[in-house]
């Protein structure tokens, strides 16, 4: 009896280990896909997509795994270290994967129709050394959100359009409401401090790179911008822990009416919020931050050359995902902007056809999509296609934190970062 149990256990172990493998099983092509979690309901949408896709493509076994933004980089890196990278990955940034020779060029697997459908600027934003390495999955843009009621109560008639007006508005709010209202939301945490750097430097006339695309981190405009961030903290205009507060508690505070102004994404207001607000251009030059995440395809680590069956399955996956109805539905579901021509056009007219994720039953707004899709061309994007981007991203956060703590001056810190990146 013991022998039989032992044999059964060993068989079960062998079978379960065998099941761990990817690739082609039972004549089916298996595709492992990792998707970033954009909201509380991401899993539900992808489960439905997986079911529909497998029903339409019986020769493909699609495994979609949803991973939170907090964990996705560590999950993917650990899998790569163990040579178990997914077939398709949704993440932000691709240059490091290209540098490690892990990705397939997009032209090798995207059908002509799907490629033609991408908005040109999005398609080109994923180009590195003349090759496009990833596909834009969605976009969003950031603007200045102001609580109009609070501003009016403090005697400020209109949302600030210059940085001096920001300081004036903050002072008025602080004087009027005291500790009960935070005038300005600031996040220079390791979570998204690079976004803060973008908002201020771009709108002071600086930025990450110069016109030739070379790193220009220590420009006079950038120094002025970083010093402005320090002023906001020193004068007590922003939240008390900008080094550790991510934008999520700030968004909650804005939605609850305890924060008067903050720069944030277009979908930041919670559904049950009753605050009176408006979204306006970021003060200064009015340049918004465009965020565009990507889908990228990994080479098969177990094969020397690309397997045509796998490539075909990947093509089918992208065709199915970017199909106008499906993709439009996903954009409304998650509250982001589309990166394809037909979905942009469709959502600008018919967004009400699609449901927002969750149980609220709310539908999309064509007006919303028409407004924000039109705003996207004025947005600037992170220079993610540059190989040093990750170092620069972490570097500018470090600069902001050190300068605001008074450990160094903006000029010294930015000079050091520029030297490090250029060297």
């Amino acid at each position: 009896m013991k022998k039989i149990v032992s044999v059964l256990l060993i068989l079960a172990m062998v079978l379960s280990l065998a099941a761990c493998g990817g690739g082609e099983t039972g004549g089916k092509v298996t595709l492992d896909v990792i998707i970033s979690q954009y909201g509380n309901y991401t899993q539900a949408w992808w489960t439905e997509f997986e079911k529909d896709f497998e029903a339409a493509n019986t020769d493909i076994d699609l495994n979609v795994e949803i991973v939170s933004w907090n964990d996705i980089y560590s999950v993917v890196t650990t899998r790569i270290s163990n040579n178990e990278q997914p077939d398709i990955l949704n993440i932000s940034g691709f240059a490091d994967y290209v540098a490690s020779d892990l990705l397939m060029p997009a032209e090798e697997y995207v059908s002509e129709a799907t490629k033609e459908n991408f908005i040109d600027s999005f398609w080109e934003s994923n180009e590195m050394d003349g090759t496009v390495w990833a596909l834009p999955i969605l976009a969003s843009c950031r603007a200045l959100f102001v609580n109009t009621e609070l501003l009016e109560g403090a005697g400020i008639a209109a949302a600030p359009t210059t940085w001096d007006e920001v300081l004036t508005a903050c002072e008025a709010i602080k004087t009027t409401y005291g500790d009960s209202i935070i005038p300005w939301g600031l996040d220079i945490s390791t979570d998204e401090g690079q976004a803060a750097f973008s908002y201020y430097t771009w709108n002071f006339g600086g930025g990450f790179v110069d016109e030739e695309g070379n790193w220009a981190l220590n420009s006079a405009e950038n120094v002025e911008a970083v010093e402005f961030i320090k002023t906001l903290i020193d004068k007590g205009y922003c939240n008390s822990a900008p080094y550790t507060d991510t934008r999520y508690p700030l968004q909650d505070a804005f939605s609850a009416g305890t924060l008067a102004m903050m720069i944030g994404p277009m979908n930041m207001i919670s559904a049950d919020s009753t605050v009176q607000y408006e979204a306006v251009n970021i003060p200064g030059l009015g340049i918004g931050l465009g965020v565009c995440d990507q889908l990228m395809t990994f080479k098969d680590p177990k094969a020397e050359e690309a397997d045509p069956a796998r490539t075909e399955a990947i093509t089918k996956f992208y065709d199915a995902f970017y199909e106008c109805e499906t993709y439009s539905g996903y954009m409304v579901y998650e509250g982001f902007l589309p990166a394809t021509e037909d979905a942009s056009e469709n959502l600008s007219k018919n967004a009400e056809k699609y449901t927002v994720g969750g149980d609220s039953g709310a539908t999309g707004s064509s007006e919303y999509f028409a407004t924000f899709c039109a705003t996207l061309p004025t947005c600037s994007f992170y220079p993610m296609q540059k190989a040093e981007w990750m170092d620069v991203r972490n570097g500018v956060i470090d600069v902001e934190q050190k300068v605001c703590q008074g450990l160094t001056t903006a000029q010294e810190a930015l000079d050091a970062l520029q030297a490090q990146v250029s060297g």
Partner: protein
Amino acid sequence: MNKSAKIQSQKNGANSQTLQTMRKVEPYIWLLPSIILMCCMIMIPIVNVFRASVTEITKVGVYKEFNGLANYASILKEQTFWNTLQNTLIWTVVVVGVSTVFGFILALVLNVEFKGRKFVRALIVFPWATALIIQSVVWKYIINADYGALNALLYNLGIIDKYVNWTATPGAFFAWECFIGIFVTIPFVTFCVLSGLQSIDTSLYEACDMDGANFFQKLFKVTLPLVMPSLTVSTVLNIIYVFNSFPIVWTISKGDPADQTHTLVTYLYDLSFSNGKFGEAAAVSVIGFVILAVCASIYMIMTLRAERED
């Protein structure tokens, strides 16, 4: 002895020899699954970390070639590493030291009979029984200057007239982290010491009373020497736990502002998963491992030697 009896006797001899060998081997067979498990779960990761510390690894985790001590050299010239090392030593000494003193005092109190003792004992277990990550998140919200419970409480009680920024400087952040570390560690020490206290024969105290010994004489001459084994175990385990503790520092500050509140564990996590410096992170891990092994060994040897001398 006839031939068949001789064969039978030889057979019996062989059987008993096999039995003896089996008896010798048997414990190892039973231990084998645990040894295999330990090798898989402990030794292989340790070996991998050592290997990673002498390997060039790309930002996305692809192993390249052996690069000798380059990762160590790169780390040792970073000022952040030395600040982090200093923080780690302060963090370990303060949290272990203070929690040991308070835990010991609390154990003495809980060893005395009083009404509601069981309830108090149960209450003290809570900080230890709750997940560290949950406690850290709760504390993060308590001390937040803008919407935290502490400011609201003090303000409503009229103790403060305006909200206080409890985490205005890196030092303040780190002090709070140490406080939370102490708060969650005290119960462990208390219960370790309490188990030692309960094993002390009460006749010893009666003898002391007869000899006219005061409270402190009884404490230093009887209690402390007899609970020393429990205290040693709790201190060594605490040094290891606290040195390697991740959730509190990561949840409260993530090592910020400007990497000034890191301990070695959060620093190596940040190096690897935020900065993509896996080789350097492995080097930090090895350095931490060596420091911990040396400190724990010295403490154990010293304590055991002292006990033997006693």
